[in-house]
């Protein structure tokens, strides 16, 4: 009996899913762990010398999320999703993150919650995650560079986390920051962007049920190159809004400065909603290439999530507030 079957039989409830093993996390990231996260993560340790395949799959316990929030499109291959990444902290080539993200140490990790909240503090990751049941959401991901993927994320709604820390009535925006540590993130030694990476959402966007904090994908702990140990997923916005390896969440009254819109305000707006009718100044946003396909497909307004989120932008001129 394989370890997987054993776990399935003894530990996992019917609806829980456990995906197989993976080699990717063999790097330093493999320490992402479990003992630290009782109830959340469970590590399948390398079985023994007898097991020939390198495997340090870290399966997660989770439920499927609400059906209406997931797409039934086939997910992008795990291979492509973990080897074709924009994560400039590890280099600007899309293959760089897979090559260099081994130096990131996603454990121990803590997140600072501050600003307009009643219960600010620096929270160890395991405490941050403990109360939140994990669920799977299969989302489309549309990059501003006109390619797209379909990713099965594992996480929980950002809204649930924010509520826990009790935002004050003055909180109108949420600002996020990625880790700043050139030792762990060698791409930060170069000034390709103004480090640390910053992103932000308006409060109603942050509280929307589609907005996810992810700790895993494809049933397993997030690989470093995909933003371990904690990242944002906002599926109706261009990918760069979904900030990775978060160390700070700040609630505030004013609109936060965000990295790409600071880098080039003409090309990247604060909202960055997927919109086929508003071209990037240099290229068309009307179509996209789904990774794994040769043909381009039309890009959907708000990445196909208009039904759920269009009301957030009622009355706004999305050409101006792009």
């Amino acid at each position: 009996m394989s370890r997987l079957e054993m776990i399935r039989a003894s530990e996992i409830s019917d609806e829980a899913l456990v995906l197989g093993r993976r080699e990717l996390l063999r790097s330093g990231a493999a320490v992402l762990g479990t003992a630290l996260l009782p109830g959340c993560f469970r590590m399948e340790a390398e079985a023994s010398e007898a097991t020939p395949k390198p495997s340090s799959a870290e399966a997660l316990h989770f439920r499927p999320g609400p059906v209406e929030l997931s797409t039934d499109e086939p997910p992008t291959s795990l291979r492509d999703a973990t080897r074709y990444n924009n994560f400039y902290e590890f280099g600007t080539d899309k293959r760089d993150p897979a090559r260099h993200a081994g130096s990131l140490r996603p454990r121990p990790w803590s997140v600072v919650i501050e600003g307009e909240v009643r219960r600010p503090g620096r929270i160890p990751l395991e405490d941050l995650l403990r109360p939140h049941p994990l669920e799977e959401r299969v989302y489309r991901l549309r990059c501003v560079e006109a390619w797209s993927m379909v990713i099965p994320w594992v996480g929980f709604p950002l809204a649930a986390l924010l509520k826990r820390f009790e935002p004050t009535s003055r909180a109108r925006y949420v600002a996020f920051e990625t880790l700043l540590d050139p030792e762990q993130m060698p791409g930060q030694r170069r000034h390709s962007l103004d480090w640390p990476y910053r992103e932000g959402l308006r409060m109603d966007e942050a509280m929307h049920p589609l907005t996810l904090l992810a700790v895993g994908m494809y049933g397993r702990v997030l690989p470093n190159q995909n933003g371990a140990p904690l990242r944002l997923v906002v599926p109706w916005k261009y990918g760069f809004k979904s900030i990775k390896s978060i160390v700070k969440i700040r609630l505030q009254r004013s609109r936060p400065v965000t990295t790409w819109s600071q880098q080039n305000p003409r090309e990247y707006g604060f909202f960055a909603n997927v919109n086929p009718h508003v071209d990037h100044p240099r290229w068309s946003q009307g179509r996209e290439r789904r990774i794994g396909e040769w043909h381009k497909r039309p890009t959907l307004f708000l990445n196909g999530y208009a039904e759920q989120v269009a009301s957030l932008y009622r009355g706004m001129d999305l050409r101006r507030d792009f």
Partner: protein
Amino acid sequence: MARPGWRSAHRILAGACALPLLTLAVQAAGDQLGADPVEDLLHRTGLWALRFLVASLAVTPLRRQLGLPGLAPWRRTLGLWSFAYASVHLSLWWLLDLEGDPGQVLEEVTKRPYVTVGFAAFLLLVPLAITSTRSWQRRLRGRWRRLHLLVHPAILLALLHFLWIEKADFTEPAAYAAGVGGLLLLRLSHRRV
């Protein structure tokens, strides 16, 4: 006339220039390109077109500095290979990125400045490729040399095209720009002397 040794070296070089294209073809056939194969094909064919163009520009200064007249025919070879890669680049863009829609070509060329300059660079290379033969060289005489100065604007437009598609990291195009700048300076300084 070059010595036989030079001629065979030149022949080997001319053949070797096809290697990047062969590699791409083999990788494409074996599904070994990156996660976005179209992007990969476009990027690499474009990059090789630029590399060969820069290399062709380096031939004359190198020939003069080293006093090696045998290098002379390499300029045409490298220039023609640059044109070949640029043609593949443009064709793949049309077929794979625009899915063969000719109307889209016009729209992209007129609407997107980085496409405009890239397309212009290609157009400048067309007459150079056509008149690269000995007979055209004879027919045009003194005008041939002047016509072939078009390689300078072509390379500058190609660099601009490269620079314009980058999002944040300009290291690579900047390195090429520095190389081209150096070569053009060499050329100018030679003229003055």
